[in-house]
């Protein structure tokens, strides 16, 4: 891979990461070029093999199609999996299966990166607060721009290094992760969203009794296997009934 290709891929990897902002936030970043299937096409284009890029991207996409990140709970990170996994597979002429196989450990590294950034960014929070207090308002407003530096570091550098310093280096690094950890991380990925949902509940629940609403939603999926659109309709209906009760009259 040429240095130029590696630099370009690393840049795009940063732009498509969860906290990268410069492609209209998550609209063009995390949710667009951050999707493995799109990343596959883009990386394939850079490396001159769009077709295989898409095939590998789609395979990785399948692993993460149901990924949600409620309240900072990130059960997996598609970024390294895509921007390291796909180039390496393409460069080495490896199959989609290989990319999928290394995507799990890469995702773990990605999760670690996410939490490092989210922890470090507290520094920016306090800086912003201080600047506001000091009346440096323009500067304070620029904090979310400055704070890109942390995400840039944890994304650009590893992706560039992995792409440029080659295919034989990364698998070795991955092999360092003890085999037995894999299970643990998958269990963790399964239960981690609970924390995010817990946070959403914390900021939504007004009284313990309202847990009943939560349970009704839960039953609609867990017991009745309703599609989420149907759940949302029922939720609207319940809110409508509630509105009629609360407003003490019929609303239509």
């Amino acid at each position: 891979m040429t240095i130029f290709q590696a630099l370009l891929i690393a840049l795009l990897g940063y732009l498509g990461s969860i906290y990268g902002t410069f492609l209209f936030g998550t609209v063009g970043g995390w949710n667009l070029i951050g999707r493995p299937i799109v990343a596959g096409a883009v990386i394939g284009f850079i490396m001159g093999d769009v077709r295989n890029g898409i095939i590998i991207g789609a395979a990785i996409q399948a692993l993460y199609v149901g990924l949600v990140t409620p309240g900072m709970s990130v059960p997996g990170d598609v970024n390294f999996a895509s921007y390291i996994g796909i180039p390496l597979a393409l460069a080495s002429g490896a199959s989609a299966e290989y990319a999928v196989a290394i995507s799990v450990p890469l995702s773990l590294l990605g999760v670690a990166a996410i939490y490092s950034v989210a922890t470090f960014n507290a520094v920016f929070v306090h800086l912003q607060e201080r600047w506001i207090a000091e009346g440096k308002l323009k500067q304070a407003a620029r904090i979310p721009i400055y704070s890109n530096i942390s995400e840039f570091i944890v994304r650009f550098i590893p992706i560039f290094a992995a792409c440029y310093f080659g295919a034989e280096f990364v698998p070795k690094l991955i092999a360092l992760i003890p085999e037995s950890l894999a299970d643990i991380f998958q269990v963790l990925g399964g239960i981690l969203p609970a924390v995010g949902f817990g946070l959403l509940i914390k900021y939504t629940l007004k009284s313990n009794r309202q847990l009943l609403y939560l349970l009704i939603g839960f039953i609609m999926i867990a017991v009745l296997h309703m599609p989420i659109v149907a759940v949302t309709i029922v939720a609207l209906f319940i809110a409508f009934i509630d509105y009629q009760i609360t407003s003490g009259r019929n609303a239509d």
Partner: protein
Amino acid sequence: MAKLEKKDIRKCYVNWMTFALGCQNMERMMAPAFARMMGLVVDKLYDKKEDKIKCMQRHTQFFNTEEAMGAIIPGVILGMEEKRAEGEDIPDELIQSTKTALMGPFAGIGDSLIGGTLRPILCSIAMGLAAGGNLAGPAFYCVAWLGIIIPLTWILFSRGYKFGINATDMVFAGGRKDAITRGANLIGLIVVGAISAQYVTANTGWAYVSGDMEITLQGILDSILPCLLPLLLTLLAWYLLDKKGMKIGKVFVVFIVIAVAASLTGLLII
């Protein structure tokens, strides 16, 4: 005489969407992005430095929502802040309580409808179209995603803004805002309950084997209530965060410990 022009609203919208997750952090989550957005218009709203500072300080508090559906909230708040700057009697607490009241529900609704429904549907279609390396897959995704998400978020933001500037006329403090908050609340709770059944995965591997017969704990739990463990884990997280007042970072640690212990003992399996 409105202080903000159409182009200011647009600028705020663009900056919200761009930076919402840009300084994501364990402590205040999306607060820096909110403060930035206010910082862009604070000069138009207030003349006195002191007022400007106060305004921005109001928005350094904890804030978290799903950035797309939740785009309605910075919209509403922008409207309210403008009215306030124009001299309406909108107390700080009302602005703060409006943010807090709306962020939870819209996080739930957004995570479920955008992250849990729209995105997987578009991705699935794209994966289908991409078979054999066909460019139609990624192309479809890009067009569909942008074609839906940009109008949607702009409508939410701009409607929210209009709602916000009409706040006081509509006896905002009581009546309509409360009804909307409450409704969003209930819907948020229901969909969060629903997607936690869908996205939290926890199966126990414990089983009692004796000769040919095997009795699995998971089977028993399923006969009581399917997805019981995901439910209990979600409630545990809520309990720790809300009732015990734990920081989210600490709760992550608790869950990592659970995952390690449960995985090593086979209590939870994949």
